[in-house]
């Protein structure tokens, strides 16, 4: 039970590379925060700095309000689940889980109670005498979880814990992790590059890019009001349509593509952005068929995915768009389909800075 505070946390390597460029984050007690980003964005480095496995070159990490920058990993009272699980290969499952408790000189009876309780929770009771190499990937993952929970630490740190599992198991373990974290209400930081994991697990997520936090917010906020072009493009599948645009005089409508492109209504005037180069973002799932919609999509390609179909095409003015339609809908390449989009689903970004422009 703890809070974690990151204050302008930085990591600069000896060769001058800025891996993490000043992150501010306040994690509430019991909250599960997901650090999401492409590989090399600094999310793992940030997690490892909280764990104490990486030195902090600037700023402060506080656990329960106390500065831990110079504390050894063991003294921070955190537990970590590694991507490759990092089980001790020469120890039985029982000893893997008991190792951290024995190092803390806990009484034997208490160790035994905790290990057996954790094994019960995770369905490992039958496997306590096995060695890691005799376990399947999913079982190893559970032992790694068990090793974390027996410690009853202040915080769990997860470093891509599901990426070594096959797709089916991943979904299953994801649900288990979420359930466990909710039940134990232990503050958690969870690193992943998988947006589905991020969206489903997070109370709040931190979208990272090139060492900086692009956006910190609930999954819903990040999805419905992406703070930057990067977030807009990274979250959502299929990816958001991002096209060039220009404000109409008055700033209440935006024109897609060239001068003869269609104009879309905005959810509020954006007078301040007049004259600037803009990018317009519209999610494929927000483009809906409407007989008098402003977008006349000339369909070039149809991808039928079963449940739904992706329509690739262009609108007058040259902007290329992808729209999502029902799987059974009878759309064919060469047809023209009229589409509409609700004003609140039209996102505007400054083309130069990439930041979101709101009314």
């Amino acid at each position, binding site marked *: 039970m703890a809070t974690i505070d990151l204050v302008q946390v930085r990591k600069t390597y000896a060769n001058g590379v800025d891996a993490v460029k000043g992150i501010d984050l306040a994690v509430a007690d019991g909250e599960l925060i997901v650090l999401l980003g492409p590989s090399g964005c600094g999310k793992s480095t940030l997690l490892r700095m909280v764990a104490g*496995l990486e030195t902090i070159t600037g700023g402060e990490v506080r656990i329960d309000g106390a500065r831990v920058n110079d504390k*050894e*990993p*063991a003294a921070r009272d955190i537990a970590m689940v590694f991507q*490759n699980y990092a089980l001790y290969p020469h120890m039985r499952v029982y000893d893997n889980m008991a*190792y*951290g408790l024995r190092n803390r000189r806990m009484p034997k009876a208490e160790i035994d109670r905790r290990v057996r309780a954790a094994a019960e929770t995770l369905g490992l009771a039958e496997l306590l005498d096995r060695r890691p190499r005799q376990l399947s990937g999913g079982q190893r993952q559970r032992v790694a979880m068990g090793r974390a929970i027996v410690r009853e630490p202040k915080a769990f740190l997860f470093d891509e814990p599901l990426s070594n599992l096959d797709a089916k198991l991943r979904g299953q373990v994801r649900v288990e992790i979420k359930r466990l974290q909710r039940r134990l209400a232990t503050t958690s930081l969870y690193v992943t590059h998988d947006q589905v994991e991020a969206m489903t697990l997070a109370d709040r997520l931190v979208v990272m890019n090139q060492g900086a936090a692009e956006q910190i917010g609930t999954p819903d906020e990040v999805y419905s009001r992406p703070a930057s072009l990067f977030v807009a493009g990274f979250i959502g599948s299929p990816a958001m349509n991002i096209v060039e645009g220009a404000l109409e005089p008055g700033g209440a409508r935006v024109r897609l593509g060239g001068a003869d492109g269609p104009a879309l209504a905005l959810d509020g005037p954006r007078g301040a952005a007049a004259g600037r180069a803009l990018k317009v973002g519209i999610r494929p799932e927000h483009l809906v068929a409407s007989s008098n919609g402003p977008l006349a999509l000339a369909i070039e390609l149809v991808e039928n995915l079963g449940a739904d179909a992706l329509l690739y095409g262009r609108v007058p003015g040259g902007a290329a768009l992808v729209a999502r339609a029902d799987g059974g809908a009878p759309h064919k390449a060469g047809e023209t389909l009229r589409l509409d989009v609700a004003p609140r689903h039209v996102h505007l970004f400054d083309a130069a800075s990439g930041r979101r422009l709101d009314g």
Partner: protein
Amino acid sequence: MIKRATFGGVALPYALLLPQIAITLIFFFWPAGEALFQAVHVQDALGLKTRFVWFENFERVFSDGYYLASLRITAVFTLASCLLAMGFALLLAVMADRVIRGAGAYKTLLIWPYAVAPALAGVLWGFMFNPTIGVVAHALDAVGIKWNYYVDGDQALFLVTIAAAWKYVSYSFIFFLAGLQSIPRSVIEAAAIDGAGPTKRFWTIVFPLLSPTTFFLLVLNLVHLFFESFGIVHALTQGGPGRATEILVFRVWSDGYRGQDYGGSAAQSVVLMAIVIALTVIQFRYVERKVHY
């Protein structure tokens, strides 16, 4: 899934095996057979007549008090060199594993001693420890230790032991370093988070995970020390003073070539062979099972 290369006929695979088989036959089985043959024969002084004597040579060898002393010396020498070499190699490997800058240079330098021939190593150590002109002998003298391995048997045994160990440090170092580097970093990190300090991490995680490497080196170093330390002893002490450093392999040579006792020498080499084979079998049979996790 194991992929196997398959051959149409039998000629090609045997042809490909031939060089290795030839080398093994000529350089191992032939001499070993010769030794077995000679071990049960005696020759007259001129080498004209050979007589089959059953196990007379062995009886003679085992009733020789010097031979039993040599067994003891060999055991002390081999075990001490082996432990010294491996312990020091492990220490160096652990330190080299932590070096970030110039790691390549360290490793290269540390590997060099293995390239030095045993006889040369013996000469080098002989110079350093020479009671009259050696730098180490001089230094020892300065702190009040009377150093003269020409007359002091214990000192001589100590000298050949460290000289032999020095040679095997490099070899063991390479394997230990490779072993250390194959331990996933995250396992060490997990142990750090689990509250184990550096020393505890080493003894509870790193050392157990190195045990296959340690075991392999133990077998290899013991066998090498049994056979290949001849050069060091020959160059440094000639088995002396007063047979104090007469290890089995040196005795085989000195009885055979100096003493012209081919039967006795052959019997000793057969015993040596048997000891090494027995050691290896014991190690693989009983120890190996316990070290693989």
